[in-house]
């Protein structure tokens, strides 16, 4: 816990480019940050002044606050900063302190000062600030030298009308757009590696999410459902609370098992998942489906298969992973924090009904034909009716970003 006032300077790149929508995006970012910071026991306040977003607090766990900012979409990067009045002596002293803490615990041989002056009333120019602060620091640290090309530490000094900001560290954020600025979609969330990553990329584009999971008790276990909740919670860490729709899928699977030839079961099963997800999306005001599919990754993820499955929904189907290789998805899953959960070996819907020889390139006409004996509308209606809604809250702890 810190006693003195702390400050983060938050940068938002892309949303700065959005022209007249800009104020809408910035206020969404401020609101999302403020909301996410409520999960931390602190008095942090988020403000927007002169094209900059600031997070300021006097009471709170610094690591947790950094963790929140580092996982909020729309944040390109952020810097722990100090703000001093427009005064040369105060600036030099604060810059020297910032340098001292920047060299703590590591080997620092070189540095440079990088000043920017937007407040032209300040008596020194940028070059003069560089010299003044550089000299001040050098006099107090005899073992270092200036290197303007590849310094170990860069002391940034921004002279603005509301004061002078000093910082040396730049911590990356996830980028993207603030969640909620791009409407809402329904994520098909399995217990696998791919779908949480797909959800993350949807969130990154500012899409708010609800998730739907197909549970086939007793063929899938309570533990596998818990794993899905845990994965959903990982996403909630980036998005805030996420509604999770748990569909009791066993009756649909039973009908498929009894009336559809083995090689078409996966295709027909996926069609039912899309139909049910679409019905839920429409009821909840979601405008698209999001899936973790990627072309050619497993035998059934062919364009033929996607076409046969996608036919049953009128909603756009977003497949953010379509351009990724498996190892790229795994790398992302690790970074996002879902990988360790995803590889827990509880069965999900797809792995339990795998037939010996699935149709990898199902013909649309055949799929429609094999589905004929099923009372599709009644099955969908029944499954939707038995769906349970849970709200998955974000975790209360944060991975260290330091």
């Amino acid at each position, binding site marked *: 816990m810190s006693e003195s006032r702390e400050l983060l300077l938050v940068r938002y790149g892309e949303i700065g480019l959005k022209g007249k929508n800009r104020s809408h995006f910035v206020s969404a970012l401020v609101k999302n940050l403020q909301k996410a910071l409520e999960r931390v026991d602190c008095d942090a306040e988020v403000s927007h002044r002169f094209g900059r977003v600031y997070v300021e607090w006097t009471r709170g766990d610094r690591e947790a606050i950094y963790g929140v900012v580092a996982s909020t979409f729309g944040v390109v990067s952020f810097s722990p900063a100090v703000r001093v009045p427009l005064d040369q002596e105060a600036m030099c002293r604060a810059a020297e302190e910032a340098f001292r803490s920047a060299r703590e615990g590591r080997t620092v041989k070189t540095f440079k000062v990088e000043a920017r002056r937007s407040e032209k009333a300040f008596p020194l120019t940028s070059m003069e600030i560089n010299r003044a602060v550089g000299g001040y620091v050098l006099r107090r640290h005899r073992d270092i030298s200036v290197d303007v090309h590849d310094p170990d530490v860069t002391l940034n000094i921004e002279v603005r009308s509301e004061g002078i900001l000093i910082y040396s560290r730049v911590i990356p954020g996830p980028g993207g757009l603030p969640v909620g600025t791009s409407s809402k979609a329904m994520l098909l969330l399995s217990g696998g590696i791919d779908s949480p990553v797909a959800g993350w990329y949807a969130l990154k584009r500012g899409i708010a999410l609800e998730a739907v999971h197909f549970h086939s008790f*007793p*063929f899938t276990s309570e533990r596998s459902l818990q794993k899905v909740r845990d994965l959903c919670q990982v996403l909630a860490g980036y998005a805030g609370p996420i509604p999770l729709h748990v569909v009791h899928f066993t009756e649909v699977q039973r009908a498929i*098992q009894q009336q559809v030839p083995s090689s078409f079961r996966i295709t027909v099963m996926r069609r039912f998942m899309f139909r049910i997800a679409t019905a839920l999306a429409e009821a909840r005001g979601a405008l698209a489906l999001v899936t973790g599919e990627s072309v050619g990754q497993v035998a059934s993820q062919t364009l033929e298969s996607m076409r046969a499955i996608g036919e049953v929904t009128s909603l756009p189907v977003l497949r953010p992973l379509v351009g990724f290789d498996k190892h790229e998805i795994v790398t992302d899953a690790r970074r996002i924090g879902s990988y360790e959960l995803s590889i827990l*070996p509880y069965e999900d819907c797809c792995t339990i009904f795998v037939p010996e020889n699935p149709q990898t390139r199902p013909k649309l006409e055949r799929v429609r034909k094999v589905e004929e004996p099923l009372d599709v509308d009644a099955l969908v209606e029944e499954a939707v009716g038995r769906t349970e809604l849970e709200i998955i809250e974000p975790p209360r702890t944060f991975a260290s970003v330091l």
Partner: protein
Amino acid sequence: MQGIYLDHAATTPVRPEVVAAIQECFTVHFGNPSSPHAVGLAAEAAVRRAREQVAAAAGVSRDEVVFTSGGTEANNLALRGAARTVRRGGGTLLCSAIEHPSVLETVRALQDEGFSVRQIPVDRSGAVRLDQLAELVDANTRLVSVAYVNNEIGAVQDIAEVVRTVRQINPDAVIHTDAVQALGKLPLAPWAWGVDLVSLSAHKIGGPKGVGALLVRRGTRLVPLLTGGEQEAGLRSGTENVPGIVGFGLAAELAAAEMDDLARRLGRLRRRVVELVQERLPVAQVLGPPLAEAAPHIVNLALPGVKGEVMVRLLSEAGVYVSTGSACSAKKRVQSHVIASLGVADELKEASLRISLGRETTEEDVERAAEEIVRAYEELVQWRR
């Protein structure tokens, strides 16, 4: 939890009288047995009493009981402790193919330390092949570990015969038996059989989790796993888990006193549940030893055509709690190494249910359980096509 609990080989409810005894240790006799004052001495006396109780239940002397954190630690102390009395790479370690993971994985770890390791195969009933054992033992054999009762199929080994077979060839080999599933169900006479080390656990007999013991026959050399305050005659440093030890002592005493009646009753109930299921489902097959030869509380029933884990979930929903494989392997998605060692057909391997009975089990319980097993099977078998 309401329902019918038939998973006593995984763990048992703690007996109310044991709970009361433990409670007292948390609040009244909370002392550290190493403290020189009266509070410490009272705790020391409580541990001594528990040591006597466990010793009496197992048929050994008081000073041969080393309390541990449970069966896993007892097995680790036995194997690592005995193996490390010789220099690196000193000899061969033998264990049966159906040992508990806490033996199999420990032996595997010792292999990395330079010991050579061999597994003793079992026959279809789960009995250790003594002829194979005789071939595996030689002058380099350092250690042999064979569980008295197997936790998944209830197979009971003739430990005295194992000892005879080993010692005929190598009189110096150290012999260990994991008797965690046997305590309170079958008589123990470890020193008469000729073993050197015996593992026990409290929570399989109505005691608390987190406490067990290794019985160490006098004169057996062991290197401790933990260094510190040299508690438990230097073999297990760390302040004694007084509440756990006291609970273990009482549970062991009660279990020993009730053993004959309990074994008879459980044997009868176990036969009843198997018969009731087989009457309605003739495909149901007992895996492992014939019932008459098995430990009285465990049976492994294969129901070909359904997956054991799916059965377990459906039964759980109906309020009947059984297991598939051992609880430890149920989370990993692997076939039971025990069932695999029996050489049974593939369709049986995935279809096995372990039913294990305990003190609280009633006639009505097994009748209802049998009914639910039949019902669950009939529901699931429809899914086959």
